[in-house]
């Protein structure tokens, strides 16, 4: 009995959980939102609300405050995960870029900052034009069988896979 408990505690503190378990928990969480609030998972719309509320003179959408609160929750969730990943204390987990991103992203501080800023710009702009991101279109939309979400997700993955494979080939990594 104690052994089982110990195994479960160890499993909880593992930085990575089995993929099928995490996927199932994400599905239950996303469905929980629809059951309790009748609101599918959504991230990028919250970023649009955040952009509006930060713009001088922008009219804040009071009914959409929960979207920004949700985004804040994700930050806290990341913090909670980093605090419980088995490392002695929160150490500001350094990002692992691997050989692909290490080769792709410019080395200089300014160059990498610009790269990430422009990358983020493409992500934010693209998600608003497409009407959703990997949360709203892929996890929530495809599960609901929405044709527009299936198309958007297919394009997300085809372009991302194609771009990464081409870049990896050109960089020789």
């Amino acid at each position, binding site marked *: 009995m104690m052994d089982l408990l110990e195994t479960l505690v160890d499993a909880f503190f593992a930085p990575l959980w089995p993929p099928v378990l995490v996927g199932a928990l994400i599905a239950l969480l996303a469905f929980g939102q629809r059951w309790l609030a009748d609101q599918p998972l959504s991230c990028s719309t919250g970023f649009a609300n955040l952009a509006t509320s930060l713009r001088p003179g922008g009219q804040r959408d009071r009914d959409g405050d*929960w979207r920004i609160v949700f985004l804040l929750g994700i930050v806290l969730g990341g913090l909670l995960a980093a605090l419980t990943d088995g490392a002695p204390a929160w150490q500001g987990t350094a*990002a692992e870029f691997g050989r692909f991103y290490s080769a792709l992203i410019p080395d200089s501080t300014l160059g990498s900052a610009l790269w990430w800023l422009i990358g983020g710009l493409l992500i*934010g*702009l693209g998600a608003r034009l497409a009407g959703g991101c990997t949360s709203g279109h892929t996890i929530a939309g495809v599960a609901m069988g929405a044709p527009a*979400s299936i198309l958007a997700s297919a394009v997300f993955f085809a372009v991302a896979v194609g771009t990464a494979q081409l870049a990896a080939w050109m960089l020789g990594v």
Partner: protein
Amino acid sequence: MLNRRNALFLAFGIGFGFLLSRAGATSPLIISELLLFDDLRLLWVIATAVVLGGVLTWFARRRQWRARNTGQPITIQHKPFKRGLIVGAVLFGLGWAGTGVCPGTALAMLGEGKWFAAWVGAGIVVGAGIGSWLNHRLGSR
């Protein structure tokens, strides 16, 4: 600001951010392994989430499960085929492949202390603002 709805979504956000981290989605290395087909663990995460979500949606529709807040059957919302969908999806794919980050994971990475994600997050806010303006100009939300 602090009402039931916001408290609920704060909890959902914490759960989602935590799970994104445990999935490995907050590591650019693991994103690159997915896109280069080196390690498909994230594909299994996404596939399981979508398939189980689909099964739950099917049951909800068939059994007319009711949402707790409205008392009505859970709505099945289909996002529209909006103008700009394809162009937007292509731009999103480029940004995602270029950085190894998406809107949800950028936030979870900030919580984990992966500070580079602040640059990506700032870009997403500006990009989302421009996107909203363009959507307005295109005459569709």
